[in-house]
């Protein structure tokens, strides 16, 4: 497509940006979207901060009930996965499409392992009768109820984001096949990588808040 021009009174020409295929616009749009995500998680962090301030001791002791090793493993996994996803984008830009696809596949795999570990953690808690609204939990100290309430909400919301991430990355793989993502046209992939970075960043904050304060 030819670049369209607008002309001023002296006849000088200026390039016109169009809504079709606007790389900078797509990028800007995604950053704005991440800002909204940040505001949303920000509210949860705020609530966490307030209740932590009010129930510091109970939050620490409840946190000690979580399995820091599983949480830590998950942290390392996510760190590795942003790396693989980042390198995948780089390889795509350099034209190494096959390698890039393999790396995206690897990222998806790691994300699924993450979810598996998370699910087993939840499973253990639930089998011990610790879940929002359970009789056991509601009989405990309010600090503990609030900690586990926030724990399930925050990791749940984060897990939902991981699932969306997996969906996005699978879509990226499909687009690579159909040519929707090419070395000279990587915006969808770039935004997905950005999204995955965001998901990992959130976890980097969640991990110390939820797992480490009791250690």
């Amino acid at each position: 497509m030819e670049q369209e021009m607008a002309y001023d009174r002296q006849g000088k020409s200026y390039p016109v940006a169009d809504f079709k295929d606007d790389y900078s616009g797509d990028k800007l749009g995604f950053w704005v979207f991440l800002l909204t995500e940040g505001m949303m998680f920000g509210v949860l962090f705020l609530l966490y901060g307030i209740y932590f301030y009010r129930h510091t001791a109970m939050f620490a002791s409840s946190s000690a009930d979580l399995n820091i090793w599983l949480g830590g493993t998950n942290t390392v996994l996510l760190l590795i996965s942003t790396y693989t996803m980042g390198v995948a984008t780089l390889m795509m830009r350099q034209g190494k499409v096959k390698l890039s696809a393999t790396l995206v596949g690897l990222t998806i795999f790691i994300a699924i392992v993450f979810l598996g570990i998370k699910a087993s953690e939840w499973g253990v808690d639930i089998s011990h009768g610790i879940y929002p609204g359970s009789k056991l939990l509601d009989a405990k100290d309010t600090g503990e109820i609030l900690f586990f309430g926030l724990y399930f909400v925050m990791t749940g919301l984060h897990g939902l984001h991981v699932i969306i991430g997996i969906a996005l990355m699978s879509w990226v793989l499909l687009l690579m096949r159909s040519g929707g993502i090419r070395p000279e046209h990587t915006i969808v992939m770039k935004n997905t990588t950005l999204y995955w970075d965001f998901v990992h960043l959130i976890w980097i904050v969640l991990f110390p808040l939820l797992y480490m304060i009791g250690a």
Partner: protein
Amino acid sequence: MPSFYHETHTIFGTHKSKILQWIFSIDHKRIAILYIGVLFTLFFCAVGAALTMRAELFFPGQQLIQAQTYNQLFTFHGVTMIFLFIVPGIAAALGNFILPLMLGARDLSFPRLNLLSWWLYILGVVIALSSLVTGAGFADTGWTFYAPYSIRTDSHVLSTLIAAFILGLSSILTGLNFVVTIHRLRAPGMDFFKMPLFVWGLYATAWIQVLATPVIGITLILVILERTLGIGVFDPSKGGDPILFEHLFWIYSHPAVYLMILPGFGIISEVLPVFTRRTIFGYRSIAISSASIAGIGYLVWGHHMFTSGISDIARLIFSFLTFLVAIPTGVKIFDWLATLYKGSIVLATPMLWILGSIINFTVGGLTGLTLGALGPDIHLHDTYFVVAHFHYTILGGVVFMFIGGMHYWYPKITGAMYDEVKGRVAFGLVFVGFNMLWFPMFIAGFLGNPRRYFDYLPTFTIYHQLSGIGALLVALGLLLVLYTFYKGLKEGKEAGPNPWRGTTLEWHIPSPPPLENFSKIPYVDFDPYEYEDGEPLVQLDENFRRIR
């Protein structure tokens, strides 16, 4: 030239069916018209609910409806007016239509996302309304969903909450689309201070949508989880804090007030120069005040909580900050007055609505200051004074601006003119009715009539009866507006591209506009409102090259 009514793009390519061509269209102008249709249908439903309330309130004691029905009615009225009508309102309807035209763009940055916003909006509407007919009836919490009541009540708050969440998502996506469009798709040469002021209003609004809506989104999700699972964060019996809910709710909902108002202010700033035939006074200060209202608006939510048990220091700070918002608002109002001063005022219908809105909004704003001051608020909190205040700002202010804007851009959108006489009569009815409807409520509230009650002491009867008659006049006037628009479509004369002699870009293209608005994108080296001897200064030829 075929207009956008004749041809369109849809998300699935082309369709034979006319209906599918509309509901899957990704043309911003068609999407805007879809919004207009649904928005005003809902508006009239909510007005119907309001009239029912006013009828019940015509005499003290119970006549027509049960107390619980009244609770559901004001919730339905509030939820519909706020979440379904005025929050998306001007931006989604007029903004969607006019924004790209004003920028010299062929569409928004993300036309498909725009369609998605519309579909999410419709989904939200359907879920909200479904609770009318399912389960234990519509929510009875008021539109504010205060915890812990919203956690405990048996009525159908769950679907209302879910609906509000989905509507929030739709609003975020619209805001995102506008931000990117304004940054990316301005015609070459148009820097930020050459944008029309309606665009500035939409820009400030879009940032509020993007930054504040996620806060209410997650808060509503927490209430949903509280009701379904019992997570504890807002439930006092589990150590949760309902005051925190109020904080989070108003962190969104106060800026949301500006989200309703700022696009309206934008409309005023468009209509005034055109009907005074001169450039607007203080262009820059109006533009910047929009941005600063949006900014300061984030810091004042606490004035809704003066009586909820926050600390005295917090109250003082919030009261002070609330007064600060009045400054940029005042700047705007004085700029508008200065524009009117010495302008050759043309009292056409759009101008009447705009002048009416400035008057009403000033009353609403000044009483808002009264409420922002600590002492009076303790006395007036949750009385009809508050109800009168926000109806003055929102109905008398914003809805007037909206209707004014609808008249102003009516010829652009439809290509036809409405009947001027009917337009003015309708305005007169609504303006007189409106003041009769709400002014007595200031007095009733001041004397202590609490809000959200379906009954009142006999001493207040006279105020409520005046109010009831006023409401009837308003409703009649609104119906006349509708009829005028309908008649205009049927037998209005052709409008031509620029019936008002406006200066902004949308008046340089045919009415109704063709599918992609501009055949050639103009280079914009002029200010948005330039008049010379009462005539638009800038003229473009058919190739959108400037010839004057």
